[in-house]
């Protein structure tokens, strides 16, 4: 196939070469002429040249100059030389005058001026070649504007010669150039007619043509004798290029029906050379006239798609069935001729179209095999690489212990909420992995909280009750809410772990902040003994102390409590004797008392800011530890500070000495610029992964690291030979700041790119729907004429589309992976020999 293509491409090149009136050797480039006088004196008669005049001091950088230089080679093929003439500074003659220099180019034949071109009409190589040829082929290519013009030309040509009628949306386009180049070669054989009028396009093509696409018709006027009838027309179905026009004209120029009197195996016609099949109508002496008519009829139908030959059985000894009446020869080498018995001319046409189809399939299959090879390389793109999805689907057979959890539906949702004082609802989607992972933790929470009075755990599957979920404004899965009677629901915004969920549910039981009525209650609250339902729950207590005069601060505190509800144990005391409490802890209201570890130490903080947001932020900050143990759940709280980490990795608990030294360091500078913390590798084994990333050889433990998490990502290691003391660390930090230490490692800066490629369906679809590959908006004229179906001229388009589309259907049968899985569960997966079958 490709060999054939090459053959006719080269024949075309050869043709063009011969067509050059003045073949010349050497590479084409712009000739330089020192002066106009020199140039005009050197002009030979009959020689065509395109000249432009430039002042000797060229301004340079003119885009026109670049374009014209690159068009020199193309124009040389048509015997046109491109000449740059230098104008002496003092020259103000016709061509060198100020207004002409570089604004116009001039086309001379001999020393006669044929045409002046404004340089803005010569914007690229296509426009230069198109316009120059248009000027040269003034007689060969008729430019028309009305339908009447076209009809006149047609009438004149009838019985004499054929006409090539082309519509281009604008002159100077690539299509215009293609038409002109074709006219250069074929202009003496056919009459070329060109228009840019969209109205003419509409008059000559059916349906609704696309005026932004070029369109070419071959009008068979030579054969037309009846002056009343218009010439038959055959449209070019491909986009207009020199090659496609050449191919089309060659096909149109071939005899309609070839008479053959030799072995069909040896026959070769234009059609076969151009990669099209050849249909033989087998004829006998007795039926010759009828056969000839049939052949002509078929030939008109297949014009441009296949050749038709009339094979006389009387002259050739054929070793085939006597009944056979049609034979088909395909351009593929080595394919035997098919002899067939057909009853209808339609069958012949379908046969040819099917052949094209088969060819398409074979090509597709080849591509598919290549694809298969590609696929082998990234075979694992259909293997799950999402740890959560994979873990959940591996766990799906396990029955979850969900008996404790009430199933809510659209019907019972509202009635259930009103039954319990507090209802916890998990909204989830049963197909979604994260939801299902959380559901597993939730079932553990249910087991954990079993028997806790006043708490009802429930769930809503949003896949079943989508209306309910959208009514409740649940847009993300999972969402956990706590509904309390007569109060606004609280949406959970913490870690989806069993402990965190349980703690939230328990803390949510009491109001936040809790109003404490007596001093005893307040003291009990700080010790973690009050309220009794939270006594089992170790948590830092936060008590707001307010006097009657500080109602504004109190309101803000209450508001902050609403936001922090479930996350912080908050109480407030504003009785008359609040002063006694404040005196005990030596603060003046409004103030906060912060009791860590069951009230063993109570910190007091004066409340100076009264905006809710500030207060929430302040409370969150105050709750952070000074020298925390970093764990998976608490890291985000410290990450938010946006500071570098000074972190001590330890194989277990850290020693008393290290702890004290680090604490000193941390407390020593309250506004410090780093987070001092430690990590217990026993409790947080993933720390091993961190160390492994930082160090090629494992360091001895404990190891103290400075990690610049937010800026630069350098990791520094505290020298292991030094003991971990406040003084040593401080001097090391100074050296770090001074840039005297070398980082042990740097955090990866990589973006999180797609782990694997996706299936490129667009690329897979393109071969079967070629039109798709033409992106509307590229070059307008690339589009084939739009769908002039049902008319002889448009026959090409319609059938060209069809085989392409059919092929997808055909191919579906043959391509792999077409098992039962779509229609029924696949029981035996090994019946996938589809492709092999279609090959046999």
């Amino acid at each position, binding site marked *: 196939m490709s060999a054939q293509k090459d053959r006719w491409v080269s024949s075309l090149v050869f043709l063009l070469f011969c067509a050059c009136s003045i073949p010349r050797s050497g590479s084409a480039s712009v000739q330089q002429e020192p002066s106009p006088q020199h140039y005009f004196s050197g002009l030979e008669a009959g020689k065509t040249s395109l000249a432009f005049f430039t002042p000797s001091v060229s301004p340079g950088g003119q885009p026109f100059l670049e374009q014209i230089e690159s068009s020199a080679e193309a124009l040389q093929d048509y015997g046109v030389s491109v000449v740059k003439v230098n104008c002496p500074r003092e020259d103000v003659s016709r061509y060198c005058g100020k207004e002409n220099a570089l604004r116009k180019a001039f086309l001379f034949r001999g020393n006669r001026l044929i045409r002046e071109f404004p340089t803005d009409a010569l914007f690229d190589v296509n426009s230069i070649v198109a316009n120059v040829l248009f000027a040269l082929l003034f007689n060969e290519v008729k430019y028309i504007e009305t339908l009447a013009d076209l009809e006149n030309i047609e009438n004149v040509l009838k019985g004499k010669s054929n006409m090539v009628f082309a519509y281009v949306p604008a002159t100077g386009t690539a299509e215009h150039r293609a038409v002109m180049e074709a006219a250069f070669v074929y202009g003496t054989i056919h009459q070329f007619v060109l228009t840019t009028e969209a109205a003419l396009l509409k008059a000559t093509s059916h349906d609704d043509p696309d005026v932004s696409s070029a369109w070419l018709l071959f009008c068979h006027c030579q054969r037309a004798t009846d002056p009343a009838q218009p010439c038959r027309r055959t449209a070019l179905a491909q986009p207009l290029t020199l090659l496609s026009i050449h191919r089309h004209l060659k096909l149109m120029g071939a005899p309609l029906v070839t008479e053959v009197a030799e072995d069909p195996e040896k026959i070769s016609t234009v059609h076969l050379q151009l990669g099209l099949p050849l249909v033989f109508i087998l004829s006998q002496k007795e039926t010759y006239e009828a056969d000839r008519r049939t052949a002509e009829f078929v030939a008109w139908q297949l014009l441009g798609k296949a050749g038709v030959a009339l094979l006389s059985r009387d002259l050739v000894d054929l070793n085939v069935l006597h009944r056979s009446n049609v034979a088909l020869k395909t351009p593929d080498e080595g394919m035997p001729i098919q002899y067939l018995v057909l009853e209808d001319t339609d069958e012949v046409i379908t046969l040819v179209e099917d052949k094209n189809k088969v060819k398409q399939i074979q090509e597709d299959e080849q591509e598919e095999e290549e694809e298969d090879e590609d696929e082998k390389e990234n075979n694992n793109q*259909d293997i799950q690489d999402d740890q*959560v999805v994979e873990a959940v689907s591996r766990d799906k057979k396990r029955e979850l212990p969900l008996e404790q959890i009430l199933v809510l539906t659209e019907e019972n949702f509202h009635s259930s909420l009103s039954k319990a004082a507090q209802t916890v609802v998990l909204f989830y989607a049963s197909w979604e*992995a*994260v939801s299902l992972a959380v559901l597993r933790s939730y079932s553990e929470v249910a087991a954990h909280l079993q028997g806790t009075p006043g708490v009802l755990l429930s769930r809503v599957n949003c896949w079943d009750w989508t209306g309910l979920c959208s009514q409740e404004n649940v847009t993300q899965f999972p969402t956990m809410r706590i509904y309390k009677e007569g109060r606004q629901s609280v949406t959970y915004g913490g870690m989806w*772990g069993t402990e965190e969920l349980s703690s939230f549910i328990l803390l949510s039981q009491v109001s936040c902040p809790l109003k404490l009525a007596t001093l005893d209650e307040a003291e009990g609250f700080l010790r973690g003994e009050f309220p009794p339902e939270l006594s089992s729950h170790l948590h830092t207590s936060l008590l707001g102390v307010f006097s009657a005069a500080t109602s504004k601060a109190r309101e803000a505190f209450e508001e902050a409590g609403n936001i922090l509800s479930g996350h912080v144990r908050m109480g407030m005391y504003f009785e008359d004797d609040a002063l006694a409490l404040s005196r005990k802890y030596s603060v003046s209201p409004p103030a906060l008392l912060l009791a860590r570890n069951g009230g063993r130490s109570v910190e007091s903080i004066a409340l100076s800011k009264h905006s809710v947001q500030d207060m929430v932020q302040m409370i969150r900050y105050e709750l952070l530890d000074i020298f925390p143990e970093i764990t998976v759940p608490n890291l985000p709280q410290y990450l938010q500070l946006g500071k570098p980490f000074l972190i001590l990795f330890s194989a277990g608990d850290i020693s008393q000495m290290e702890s004290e030294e680090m604490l000193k360091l941390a407390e020593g500078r309250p506004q410090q610029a780093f987070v001092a913390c430690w990590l217990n590798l026993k409790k947080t*084994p993933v720390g091993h992964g961190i160390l492994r990333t930082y160090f*090629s050889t494992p360091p001895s433990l404990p190891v103290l690291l400075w990690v610049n998490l937010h800026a630069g990502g350098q990791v520094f290691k505290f020298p292991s030979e030094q003991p971990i003391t406040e003084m040593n660390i401080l001097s090391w930090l100074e050296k770090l700041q001074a840039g005297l230490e070398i980082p042990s490692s740097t955090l990866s800066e990589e973006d999180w790119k797609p782990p694997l490629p*996706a299936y490129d369906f667009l690329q897979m679809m393109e071969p079967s729907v070629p039109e798709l590959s033409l992106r*509307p908006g590229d070059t307008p004229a690339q589009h084939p004429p739009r769908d002039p179906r049902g008319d002889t001229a448009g026959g090409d388009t319609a059938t060209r589309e069809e085989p392409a589309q059919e092929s997808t259907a055909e191919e579906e049968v043959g391509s792999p992976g077409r098992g039962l*899985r779509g229609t029924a569960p696949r029981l035996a997966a090994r019946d996938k020999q589809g492709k092999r079958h279609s090959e046999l």
Partner: protein
Amino acid sequence: LGLALYAGSLCVVSGAAFLYHDYCVIGAGPAGLQAAYFLQQAGRDYIVFERSHAPGSFFALYPRHRKLISINKQYTGKSNSEFNLRHDWNSLLSHDRRLIFRRYSRDFFPNADTMVRYLEDFASLLKLQVQYNTAIIHVTLEKHEQAWNGHYFILTDQDRKNYKCSSLLVAAGTWVPNVVNFPGSEYVEGYETVSINPEDFTGQTVLILGRGNSAFETAENILGVTNFIHMVSRSRVRLSWATHYVGDLRAINNGLLDTYQLKSLDGLLEGDLEDLAIVKDQKGKLHITLRFYLENRNISAGIDSITLPQDELDNFATRAPYDRVIRCLGWKFDFSIYNRSLRMMPGKGNIKKYPQIKPSYESRGTRGLFVLGTASHSVDFRKSAGGFIHGFRYTTRAVHRLLENRHHGVPWPSTVYPITQLTNSIIKRVNEASGLYQMFSVLADIILLRENTTAFEYLEEYPIGVLPELEMQTGRKARNGLFVIIMEYGRNFSGADKDVFYYNRAVGEAQHAWQSNFLHPVIYYYKRLPTEREMRLHHPDWPLPRPDAIHHIVEDFLTDWTAPNAHVLPLRRFLENCLSTDLRNFFAESCFLFAFTHQKLPPSCQQGYVRMQGLVGSQELRHHAVKAGLLQDYSHTDFSDDRAPDSHGGSQEQMMRDHGIPVRPLQHLVTTKDE
């Protein structure tokens, strides 16, 4: 509202007897009531005009044999109300759970009287503003600069009462019976009046003109009592199960095909009705002849002087005389009431029974005039369900949303999600959305990406025909690329003469999803909104212009697209590659590791873990992830028995390596690449 009041008062001042409303709806059928519902919900000033004394007057008469062919599925095995609407073709959309059609009828193909009753309830329970017994007989325009569209619509009813409106919603349906005129057509009975009592046809020979559902419904009714029935029409029969178009012949009506193909005397013929002529003989029998024979001849001269085809061709197919000829040729839109200035033009070709409208359902001739319901079917004639209740209930909602944006500054409803919810939001919609499913290839969900692709905005059921105008029509911005989610049948699967039962018609593998034949979700990705020009020039077989990337979710036997590996995973990879990011979920522990080893975090850690919403995961799950090689278990490692550790940045690479070679026995059962 201010404008409305102003306009209203203006009318009073000028003294003209106009009753003003912002919105006028013509017709209280399903589409008119549906539009009224949305207008009422939005608190708009509107009125519905109905010529009859009750809603749904078309259904009071049609179908003549009273059986609706829209399915009313009682059970789907699912409680998802949105999903169940996919199989409920009769209900209108409302918040009222009483107004679900299956509460009205238990029949799979309900009686038309039930539809009338349903529509009455719909109008009364929702207290819709319907003015009955008002036939609009003339509609004209009154130019006015301050009007929404530069003009008011002036409606005149049968009592010459005038109404003035800013926007006109035409939901009048197609109710004018199609009639053909040929010599002898006066002997033809119309579907609208023909007897529906089978006894009236006992022992008769019947010719039916037309080949739609009404023709077959008529035939079905009398099949058992007639001598034989012949059916003639220009086009061949189009079976809805082959074309996937609900307006074609439904299997419930096709008893005559059976008797024809089993040679039980009934039969189908193709021929142009325009060429036909009918002559009556003295016995009252009707003979078929051709108009051609009648030329230059006086038909009243008696049958003997007229040539019948069988005189020349003695085996002419319809040579037997008929007792009755019935015309069942469908209906067309009533163009007569619109003033010429409204330029309500019939469509071209096979959509000439519908008025010309744009893909936004606005009339091509008049701004501010929208066509709803059956009359709007030209947008998707012979393609989707826009001419039927289960389709136009969604397109009506779409029109309402366009109007809300245009006249009241209410942008198209949308929800903003973090990018981590991208896969989920698509999977949720393609599995339950009814509008996408019924109005396949016409309505689309649109995902508008926000800057830096950290979040996205989700718009439901937007008409894809006006995709280029999205920003103007919805009031939303599409600057950072968009996804368009639609449902499609395989490109070459449906058609009048296609074999839709061929072997291997269904695709199973995700990598061949683009060849799926049955309805399946398709996602188009555009880096920028397609332009008008691209929309106009796109390939006719494609619903949309060429995207920058496309994804097909492989068709599913159960229409359940939630399989983690076959459906969700390829979708995620597609989205990841369009956005150039990693959309995997990670357990908190992985995020913890990344936080200490990477300067940037994947979106799921960034938007979950870092905001203190990490997924801790139960012991079992983490154990499974470790076994799958997707999570490293460090709890038993100590540094002595360690293999050569990676340098920095290695953890992710290690994960990649690990999941490349997991032992996945199941994987081999469902793929063939191992062969």
